[in-house]
């Protein structure tokens, strides 16, 4: 299974469709809290694609991810990744990749630092001219993880 953890469903739906056409099972989790509930104790997953500027549960009191910790939800995805790495070290961070459209240099640098530190890919959404190109890249990543 390949999971997207990203609230921008309309943006990723063509990609999810492409991956399904390539016979991957695909799930989309719309915010970090849902993603955490689904993935923290999961035994197996091929790849989790995490949006850097990810949404969290609208009810801050209920969410694991506060405004302060995520810098006003600018880096929720990065905090979420660290959280998963602690809760499920068997799968994470190795089976994760980061996705972003950010043009904010500070945030991009932070995402890059995180990706380099964990040795996981950082994918810029706008680099993919088509879902087909995206599908090719994901296949490459899955192959590099699982051989």
């Amino acid at each position: 299974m390949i999971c997207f953890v990203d609230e921008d469903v309309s943006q990723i739906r063509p990609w999810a469709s492409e991956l399904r056409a390539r016979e991957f099972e695909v799930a989309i989790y719309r915010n970090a809290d849902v993603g955490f509930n689904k993935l923290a104790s999961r035994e197996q997953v091929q790849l989790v694609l995490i949006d850097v500027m990810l949404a969290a549960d609208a009810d801050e009191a209920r969410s694991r991810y506060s405004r302060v910790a995520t810098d006003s939800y600018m880096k929720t995805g990065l905090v979420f990744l660290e959280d998963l790495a602690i809760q499920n070290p068997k799968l994470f961070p190795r089976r994760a990749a980061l996705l972003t459209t950010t043009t904010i240099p500070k945030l991009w640098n932070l995402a890059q630092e995180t990706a380099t530190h964990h040795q996981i890919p950082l994918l810029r959404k706008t680099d993919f001219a088509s879902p087909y190109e995206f599908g090719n890249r994901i296949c490459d990543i899955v192959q590099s993880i699982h051989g």
Partner: protein
Amino acid sequence: MTDRFQPFRDAAQCSFTCHRKDLYTKLASASFDSPGEFSVQALDIIREVLPLRAASLYRFNAASDVLALRAQSGLDYQTYQEFELPLNTLAGKAVQTRTVHSVQNVRSSNEYRDTALLEKYQLYSMLTVPLAINVPTQYWYPTPLGVLCAYPEAKKDIAGLSASLSEAAPFIARLYLASLESMKMRLRTGLVERSAYSTDTGSLLHRALRVLQDELHIEAASVFLLDERNDFLRMRGVTRLPKNIRREDIFLMPKSEDPTYLTLGEGKSRRYREPFDAFGPNERLEVVAGARRECLCFPIRQAAVAPGDTARSIGVLRVFNKQISHEGRTLPGWFSWEDIALLDFYTEMLAILVHAMHRRTAGEDDFERMMHGAKRNLHVAIQNLELMESRGAITERLPAELAYTHSNAIAALSDIEAQIERQDLRHTDDLELQPIQLWGAVLAKMPALIKRGTVAEEIPRFTIVMNEDGLLQRLPEVQGNLQAVFCIFRNIVDNAVKYARTDGDGNRIEFEVSVHKETVNVRVTDFGIGIPACAVPYIFVDGYRAPNAQARNPSGIGMGLADVRELARKMGGDVRYVDGESGSTFEVILLKASAARKNPQ
């Protein structure tokens, strides 16, 4: 409203009655030209003009009823902050009585504290002169401001000196206040000058804190601004953080009992001396050279307030440790009422500049947000259309005469996306450079772009000619920004399509790649309408379009070639026009990744 220059006018008025015009002239100059050092310079000047062996200046600390040493001339105390005089001393008497006192033989007086000083500097007599005036100002000041202690040369006329100093005292006091106004002008000038070079709030505050250090001799400082959406303080400027502490680690200060946050809430300045436990661990505070001795926190109040509203606090200025210069040494001191008056003024100025910067950047931020949203929507639209096309969902269902519509839509949306991206990249100061596989990442995608363009523009099909596959796939990596390199080639092939011949089947585009010692060069030749010789010198100028191109009235605003050349040059390469027989040839020059590694820029 109080006239800030009233003290100067008062001092000038006083000078007409002062016999010592030379004393007046020099003191007035010192007050205006070197306001930060006025205390020291005033003593030196007084000793130059009057027969004094030594002199010292104390300021009166009304809160604790002590006189604190401020400057000295002809004497040398090692540490200022420890030398405080209570009021039951000779100097203290001047404060209590507000009159001049003279002591013929100070060594026999039991009200003089430091007899070793008298011995060391051979001092025999002493005059204590209160510096008092009554001038309205915008800030509070003590009365008297302080005391001048003068030690006459041996056997000099004390009575005469007493009269001279009594006459000069109010004048000196007025100039002392006037020097504060001069300091404010210097602070204002420094802040405004440095803000002119600031591009955002962060750089503005960084420069502003340098002014604080240089002019007011504050050892360390930081500025926090309130993030109102999220109700926490965000550090936006600091003189220096400890090593290994990232600003992000203390970036955010949520509502708490931290004195910084309390200052914000109360809207009043606060003073702290050791210990500083309430501020949290030392390693999260501004770096100081020695011990942390004193901290002041000032609320930064809103600059622009609607009628009827009260200015609320929008941030906090936090300063640590006052430094005093003496005889070329920097000594620790305490913050004085003058420092507080100047820091109050400084935070007012800071609020105005922050407000001005916010207004300036708000428009830019709004535009950036709008463009980010537009790019996102374009990307979604293109991805969805591409998916439909790749599944044959369109070609199977549309009648033949509408088969072009899908490609048209993708081409148009892609064109907008490319223009926005090109502009974004062109205005990015630091392009992120990396090794790029020129063939796989860029050139291999050109045929698809060309094909789409020809369908959209309804022009005869292009023949695409490239070097033999073997060479292309063996190309060395080039150093560049992938998006920028793609933009460059995309622009050139878009132009080839836009300005292609619309009659016959002769359209051809050739890619000729050559590898050189430090570069990989790609010549792109089309056989379209070409560029007239008279237009060639201008084709890389912003907004220029050759006359025959204008006749085509194509889409776009004529920015492409200017953009692509600038992008190429930012990456250490270039884009050139090559004279040819027909059509147009552009040469894209890119640095090899290996060459870039040898000569990093």
